[in-house]
């Protein structure tokens, strides 16, 4: 057997034992617990998740308790259920992380993430991750908004993000574009993506909600997929594949000051701040304006909203336009951070799926939390991957693996409503 030459310096044996121990008990807990619950005629909807976590964290101990006592596992988010949350989810999760960390430290003792006295390295990775994570959450906000109202996942979300970035670039950039004020650029971005979103929803998605389509779920996937295809290659055909890099959109003095104060890449900090501002505006919009309240009411109960005089079809259109606009604005906030090319959309789409599934489809808070988690996981994963040559190539994989696990164990995510 040919092993990769780069991997031979590591002690894979002991680490593999710890790792397999964790995986083995996770699988045992995940498979047996729901069966036990079903056998005793109890609600087994969360049993897979908690069984797997319990097995991974504590080996046979906590699963045995679960099988013997079969406590209620669907705890509501209340103070009174804090002990159960601690015992069944927080503590085993911490144990799992500790075990995996231990396995990693045994596997690669000289790694910067586990070496003694290098805590600051890990800390800088985490803080970088938080910064990027807010931006990921911002991208995914629109997607989760669309899902909460229309009940579909827009596969063209990343393409709206890409278009938003391009619009800002061509409005603001002095060399290739019009060289206007960034605020004008942001407004133009919002307007363009909002219009595209509204036209698309009105022309192609509305028949789905009027019951004219046989299988709406698949129809929406295919249709938004076709839109993604169309938008991406329209941009590629008109603007070319040459990557664009925008400069920071604030005056150079402020940028320098930001760098001095935060000690982080200033473009990211600017993006972060735009993200927080958008979040605030969205919060205000959803809670204190009539259309925002209409959106929330439709997401809670379509029939009841229709009874009090809200037209769900128009709200659908508005929601899709808003979702597209949020994607576009997040693209505008990030065009100065990343290099921009027509294919950034596909990557952003994939990452937004990860974020909203982790946070729970349709939950705005979940999108932000999911974004943070994915940002930190990716940053730490890349920073700690033993073979730095391949670390960057694996960056999206860390998030995708979490994504697959969440889909399998708890498709509703952290804050999602029940299916």
């Amino acid at each position, binding site marked *: 057997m040919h092993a*990769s030459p780069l991997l031979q310096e590591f002690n894979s044996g002991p680490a593999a034992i710890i790792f397999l121990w964790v995986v083995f008990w996770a699988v045992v807990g995940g498979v047996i617990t729901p069966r036990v619950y079903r056998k005793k005629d109890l609600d087994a909807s969360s049993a897979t998740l908690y069984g797997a976590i319990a097995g991974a964290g504590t080996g046979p101990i906590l699963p045995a308790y679960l099988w013997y006592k079969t406590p209620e596992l669907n705890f509501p988010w209340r103070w009174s259920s804090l002990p159960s949350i601690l015992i069944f989810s927080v503590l085993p999760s911490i144990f799992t992380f500790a075990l995996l960390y231990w396995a990693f430290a045994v596997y690669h003792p000289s790694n910067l993430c586990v070496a003694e006295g290098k805590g600051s390295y890990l800390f800088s990775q985490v803080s970088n991750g938080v910064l990027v994570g807010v931006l990921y959450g911002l991208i995914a906000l629109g997607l989760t908004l669309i899902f909460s109202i229309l009940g579909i996942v827009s596969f063209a979300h990343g393409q709206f993000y890409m278009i938003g970035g391009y619009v800002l670039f061509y409005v603001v950039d002095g060399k290739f574009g019009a060289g206007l004020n960034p605020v004008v650029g942001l407004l133009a971005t919002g307007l363009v993506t909002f219009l595209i979103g509204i036209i698309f929803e009105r022309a192609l998605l509305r028949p789905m909600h009027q019951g004219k389509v046989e299988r709406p*779920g*698949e129809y929406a*996937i295919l*249709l938004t997929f076709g839109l*993604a295809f169309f938008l991406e290659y329209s941009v590629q*055909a008109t603007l070319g594949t040459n990557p664009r890099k925008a400069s920071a959109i604030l005056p150079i003095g402020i940028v320098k000051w930001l760098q001095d104060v935060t000690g982080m890449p200033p473009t990211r900090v600017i993006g972060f701040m735009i993200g927080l501002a958008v979040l605030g505006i969205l919060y205000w919009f959803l809670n204190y304006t009539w259309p925002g309240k209409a959106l929330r009411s439709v997401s809670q109960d379509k029939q009841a909203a229709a009874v009090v005089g809200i037209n769900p079809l128009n709200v659908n259109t508005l929601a899709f336009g808003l979702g597209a606009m949020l994607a576009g604005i997040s693209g505008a906030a990030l065009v100065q951070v990343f290099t921009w090319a027509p294919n950034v959309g596909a990557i952003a789409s*994939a990452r937004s799926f990860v974020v909203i599934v982790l946070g729970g489809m349709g939950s705005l808070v979940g999108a932000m939390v999911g974004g943070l988690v994915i940002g930190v996981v990716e940053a730490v994963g890349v920073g700690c991957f033993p073979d730095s040559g391949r670390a960057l190539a694996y960056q999206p994989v860390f998030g*995708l693996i979490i994504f697959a696990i969440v889909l*399998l164990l708890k498709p509703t995510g952290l804050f999602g409503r029940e299916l």
Partner: protein
Amino acid sequence: MKGKTILWIAGSLGIIFLALIPFAYDIFPFLPPGLVNNYTMHVLIISFYYAVLASSWSLLMGYAGQFSFAHMAFAGLAGYTTGMMGKFWGTGPLTGIIAGTMVAGIFGLIVGLLVLRLRSTYLALFTIAFAEIMRFVTNAEIYYTGGGNGLQMDPLLPNGLDLGFYSFDSVDKIPPYFIMFGLMLILIAFMSWLANTRFGLFLRAIREDEEAAAAMGVNVIRYKVLVFAITSMVVGLVSGVRAHYITIISPNDMIILWMSLVITMAVLGGLESLVASAIGAIVIFVTLEYLKTNFATTSVMTIALTLIFGLILYQLGIYAAKRSGTVLKNIHKTMLSVGSAIVGLGISIVTVAPITTGISNAYYDISGSLLPDQIDMSDWRLVIFGLALMLTLRFYQNGLLYPIIQRVSRAGHLAETVAKRDAAGTITEAEAGS
């Protein structure tokens, strides 16, 4: 039965036509040179590959209702299996392809088991995640897979093929052409047979309503997993052959773009018919290859504007026919709308071409960079297909080819039914009279 006969004859003619393409010059020596060469053969071979892919995707999606983005990932898995076996163990193409098929099948089984609980959107998301993980891993593990540069492997027939009276070189196109062609026919026949047995019936039952199917005694878990395993084995088989035919496989073969092409092919052909989606795949792939080159800007603009004008006039004709109420008969309405479309096309061909030429010349005079002489269609063709996908879904949910096939196959049915009813009617009248 008349319509079915027509379809059978058309299908056989199509197969014979495709089988005779490599020998075009032997049969028709007067054909212009350059019509059939190695490049066209290559395009056709790859289009057969896509035909199998689209066909198996429509078995998975159209029949079983399982929306999967992982098709290309299974294809890549099989290709990499045979490539890596050849690289590290020195096995030949045949062993590798069989092993690749098996590996694809096993992974299809595992994925099928994992996604049992997931439905439409969640299933699509999970399979996207699987496909992307596969692609990133093959990209990163350079030592095993060759990374982004791809993995070289043996040609399909390393020593060529000796038929006794004629021997082919390992780079000749005719043997792979017939291998791929034969594989396509066999696999599509196999899947069509499968779709027409109880298996296909169960799949459609699951697609329509899983709980109801389970209540009627369909083993939902078994059939869902089986359809994943079977389609991924089919995909793995052709993908292994294709990888050995072009002698290289790279992570770029697994990007979502190719998956979306497969989806477009299946949707445009007709999701609920395996043959229609296969024909759709061949037509679309050949068209895409044809559109890969540069075209003169004026001709592209002429064609686009002509089509737009023609469509507008066609819609106007339909509108007029609808407004006419009972004044016109159905056949006259059809004639009116088609006729106005034809007139529209004619007018626009006469008027649009000079206009577009004038516009583009004017632009060219103002600034040479605004409208180039030539348009590179390699991106615009994908735009066109994205648009075609959306419009087909919106207005022709059964695809473009499948309704035609259905219509032809039912051509004689109306008259037959009427005749039967009349015959039955006369009998009852006669009985009543006596």
